[in-house]
């Protein structure tokens, strides 16, 4: 039994018109769906398309007037020159002042924002230190009475903005070009994550940040990167950052997952 004998007759009658590109959208979808399921039918389509492709050669050529070519080439050359000009303008401006895309500008704004958060954080910590130092002064008198030293108390207090640490993050073998930084006060429950070198994902996927301890990974938020592969996010947790050993970023379905399910693109000790 050959293919023609076994082919759905409804499809068979559509094939010549498929080859002639003269089917309705619905009919075309029907044929293409059939071809997907029956790739062996493609040989018949190819034969018919070969016949259809002869049709333009059957037309007697008509010599176009010269002005059509002149008009076309003037348009094309103007376009080509505009492209060359645009390229040379970019190159000329590059050494002194690199042109930034709005994504890069956005990233710069985010970076500045992250820096601002770190500064505000430092100010808040300073205020806390002042307040605690006041409390210490009060405690000093009490402790003196108890025979303890002030130094013993200070050991357990957040003393200065130097508590804010920066941790370098690296991409895994999946995304070796990924890199970034985590700015955190280990005692706090949130930190700022800056990342770059990650590809932009399809609309149905997202990056998800995980804080990992001996108890396993805990979601710390979703991360979106721009066209340049850069992104900033404030990661949060119910516990202090210091209670985690590592930070990871994985690719998850849109909306995130309860546990990592996709490729791990960043994994670093913190």
């Amino acid at each position, binding site marked *: 039994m050959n293919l023609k004998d076994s082919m759905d007759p409804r499809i068979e009658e559509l094939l010549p018109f498929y080859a002639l590109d*003269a089917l309705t959208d619905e009919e075309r979808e029907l044929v293409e769906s059939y071809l997907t399921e029956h790739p062996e039918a493609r040989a018949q389509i190819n034969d018919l398309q*070969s016949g259809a492709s002869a049709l333009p050669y059957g*037309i*007697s050529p008509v010599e*176009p007037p010269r002005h059509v070519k002149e008009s*076309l080439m003037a348009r094309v050359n103007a376009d080509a020159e505009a492209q060359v000009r645009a390229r040379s303008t970019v190159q000329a401006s590059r050494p002194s002042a690199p042109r930034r895309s709005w994504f890069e500008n956005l990233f710069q704004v985010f970076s500045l924002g992250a820096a601002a958060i770190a500064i505000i954080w430092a100010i808040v910590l300073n205020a806390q230190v002042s307040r605690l130092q006041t409390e210490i002064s009060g405690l000093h008198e009490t402790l003196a009475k108890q025979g303890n030293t002030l130094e013993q108390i200070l050991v357990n207090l957040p003393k200065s903005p130097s508590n804010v640490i920066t941790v370098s993050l690296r991409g895994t073998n999946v995304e070796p070009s990924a890199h970034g930084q985590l700015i955190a006060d280990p005692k706090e429950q949130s930190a700022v994550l800056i990342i770059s070198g990650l590809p932009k994902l399809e609309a149905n996927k997202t990056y998800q940040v995980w804080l990992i301890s001996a108890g396993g990974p805990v979601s710390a938020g979703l991360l979106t990167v721009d066209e340049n592969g850069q992104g900033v996010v404030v990661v949060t947790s119910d516990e202090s950052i210091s209670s985690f050993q590592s930070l990871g970023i994985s690719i998850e379905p849109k909306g995130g997952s309860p546990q990592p399910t996709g490729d791990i693109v960043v994994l670093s000790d913190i």
Partner: protein
Amino acid sequence: MASEKNATDVSVRINSDDNLLHAPDETLVIQVARGNSTALEVLYDRYASTVLGISLKVIGDQALAEDVLQETFWRVWQSAGTYQSQRGPFTGWLFRIARNLSIDAYRRRNVRPQTISGAEGSDPILEETPDPDTNVADQAQSILKNRQIRKALAALPTVQRQVIEMAYFYGMTRQEIAEATGEALGTIHTRARLALQKLRGEFERDEFEG
């Protein structure tokens, strides 16, 4: 020194342009995608008369057909990077652009098409007019190829040729063709299939001989 450099540049360009004149279509499209307007010019010289022939057959109006001709090659200039040689020859892609633009132009302006005629050369056309800008060997081959296929089309029974021309050049669906010709849908299917099978044999023979 500067004049020596200029002379060298001109010489390189002439040699380069000369290479383009003999380059295969697919090489030229790659060049066009890189912004080489000379490559586009070579393609235009090769196929503009066929494209205008297609457009004129569909639209039946010289001025509109010339607009479509220019638009077709403008699309090639802008979209050359999207052409995929593994999906078929450049001419198939080019003629499909021309055909689709022509059908759109015809429907938009509602200009009457030329009478659906035979392929015996009865159209008001400049058959086999030598183009001074085209390579003579290519020109001869193109003329022979076109002549052979026109002969094959002319050899088709008129009713079969009519069906495939209505579908291909005017974008008519099989139902529209059945209605226009007053024939049963099954008859239209059979005529289209037989016509394409006969043309395929001719086209393949032509490719082999070419």
